[in-house]
C-alpha cells in the first residue's frame, strides 16, 4: 500500500515503533501526514493505552515472596571440583602400572588404589573448608559437628527455602544436619558457624542444636537476618526460611 505521494504505509511494527517513540524520523513524519496511517496509529495508541490500564490492575499481592540475592560459593567443591595435580599424576602412574605390570605389581596397584580412594573422596568432598575452620571438630554420619566459640553462632543459608529448626544440646559440640530432604546440600563450617549450601534440590528441613555456651544464633539468608536468644533456643525455634527472606528483624 502507498500513500498519495507514493511512500509505503507503515506496517504494524512501524506503527508500534511510533507509539513507543522508537520510530525513525521518516516513520514519524509519515504517520503524521498520511491519513491512513494516522488513523491506524490513533487506534493502536488507544489499544495500547487501554491494555496498559488493564494490566495496571494486576500488581504484586501483599506477602509476595520477594527473591533474595543468593550467595554462591566462589570455589567449587564436591563432584566436578578441580583435582590436585599430584593426584592426577599418581592416578596416571597407577593406571600404567596396572596395565603393563606383572600380577604382583597389579595386586599392589589395586591395594594402593583402594587406600587412596578414601583420601581422594575426602579431598573432593569439601574437606578443605572443613579442615580450615573449627579445629577439633568431627563429623558424624551426615551431621556436621563443630565446636563454636562462646557467644553468637551464625547460620548462613544460601537459598530461602525450607525449614530451619534451632535448639540446644548438652553435648559440647554444635550439631547441624538435614533431617528431611537436603541430599544435595552441603553443610560447611565457617569461622562464625555454618553455611548451608542448599542451591540444588528441593526445599529441606535442617536442624541446628547448639551447646549452652552459645548465647544466640543469628540466621542469615542473603541480606536478611534474624537473631534468636538463648531462651528462644532452649524453647526450640521453627523458622520458615521463606518467611525470613520476606522480613528483616533483629
Amino acid at each position: 500500500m502507498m500513500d498519495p505521494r507514493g511512500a509505503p504505509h507503515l506496517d504494524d511494527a512501524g506503527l508500534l515503533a511510533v507509539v513507543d517513540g522508537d520510530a525513525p524520523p521518516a516513520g514519524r513524519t509519515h504517520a503524521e501526514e498520511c491519513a491512513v496511517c494516522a488513523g491506524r496509529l490513533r487506534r493502536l495508541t488507544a489499544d495500547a493505552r487501554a491494555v496498559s490500564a488493564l494490566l495496571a490492575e494486576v500488581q504484586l499481592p501483599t506477602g509476595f515472596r520477594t527473591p533474595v540475592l543468593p550467595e554462591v560459593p566462589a570455589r567449587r567443591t564436591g563432584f566436578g571440583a578441580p583435582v590436585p595435580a599430584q593426584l592426577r599424576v599418581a592416578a596416571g602412574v597407577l593406571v600404567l602400572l596396572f596395565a603393563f605390570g606383572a600380577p604382583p605389581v597389579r595386586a599392589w596397584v589395586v591395594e594402593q588404589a583402594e587406600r587412596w580412594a578414601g583420601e581422594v573422596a575426602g579431598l573432593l568432598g569439601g574437606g578443605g573448608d572443613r579442615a580450615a575452620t573449627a579445629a577439633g571438630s568431627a563429623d558424624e554420619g551426615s551431621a556436621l559437628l563443630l565446636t563454636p566459640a562462646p557467644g553468637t553462632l551464625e547460620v548462613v543459608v544460601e537459598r530461602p527455602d525450607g525449614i530451619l529448626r534451632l535448639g540446644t544440646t548438652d553435648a559440647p559440640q554444635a550439631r547441624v544436619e538435614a533431617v528431611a530432604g537436603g541430599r544435595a546440600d552441603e553443610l560447611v563450617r565457617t569461622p562464625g558457624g555454618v553455611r548451608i549450601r542448599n542451591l540444588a534440590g528441593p526445599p529441606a528441613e535442617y536442624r541446628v542444636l547448639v551447646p549452652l555456651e552459645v548465647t544466640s544464633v543469628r540466621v542469615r539468608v542473603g541480606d536478611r537476618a534474624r537473631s534468636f536468644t538463648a531462651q528462644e533456643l532452649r524453647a526450640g525455634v521453627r523458622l520458615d526460611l521463606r518467611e525470613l527472606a520476606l522480613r528483616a528483624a533483629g
Partner: protein
Amino acid sequence: MDVTRIFEETHEGLCRYLYRLTGDADLAADAAQEAFVRLIQKGPRAEEPRAWLYTVATNVVRDHGRARTRRGLLLLRAGDRVPLGDPPADPSDRMEAAETRARVRRALGELSEKERTALLLREEGFSQKEIARAVGTTTKSVGTLIARSLRKLASRFEHEWEEP
C-alpha cells in the same frame, strides 16, 4: 558486574512481569529467584543483564508450564482459580477488582504464549529488538505480534464491557 545494583533495580519489575505472565505468585517468585541464582552462578552472556534476567526467568516459567501441561493443569485455566493482586478493603470494590483481574487474566490466557510474553515484556519497557531476542523471533515479526496482541486484548475488553 554489580549484582547487587542489578538486583535492586530489577527484582520488582521482574516479579511483576512474571506474576502477570503466570497468574501464580509462587511460580513467579520461584522463577525470579532461579533467574538471580543463575545470574550469580553464570553471569549474563548478553551485555544487558536486565534483558538476560527476563529471558532466563521466562524460560524457567515456560519449562514449568510444559510440565504442568503434561499434568493436565493448563496455564490458561489458572486465572479462574488464582487470586491476582491485593483485595480492596470494601467488599463491593473487592468483588469488582477481583472480577476485573479475572477478566484480564482470562484475556491474557487467550493469547498465545509468545503473544503474551511479548506484550508483557513491552509493558515492562523493553524495545522490540530486546523482545525479539527474548521470544526468539525477528524485530519486524515481534512488532506485528505485539500490535496484533494489543488489538486482540483491547477488542476482547470492548466486547466484555458491552455485554450486559
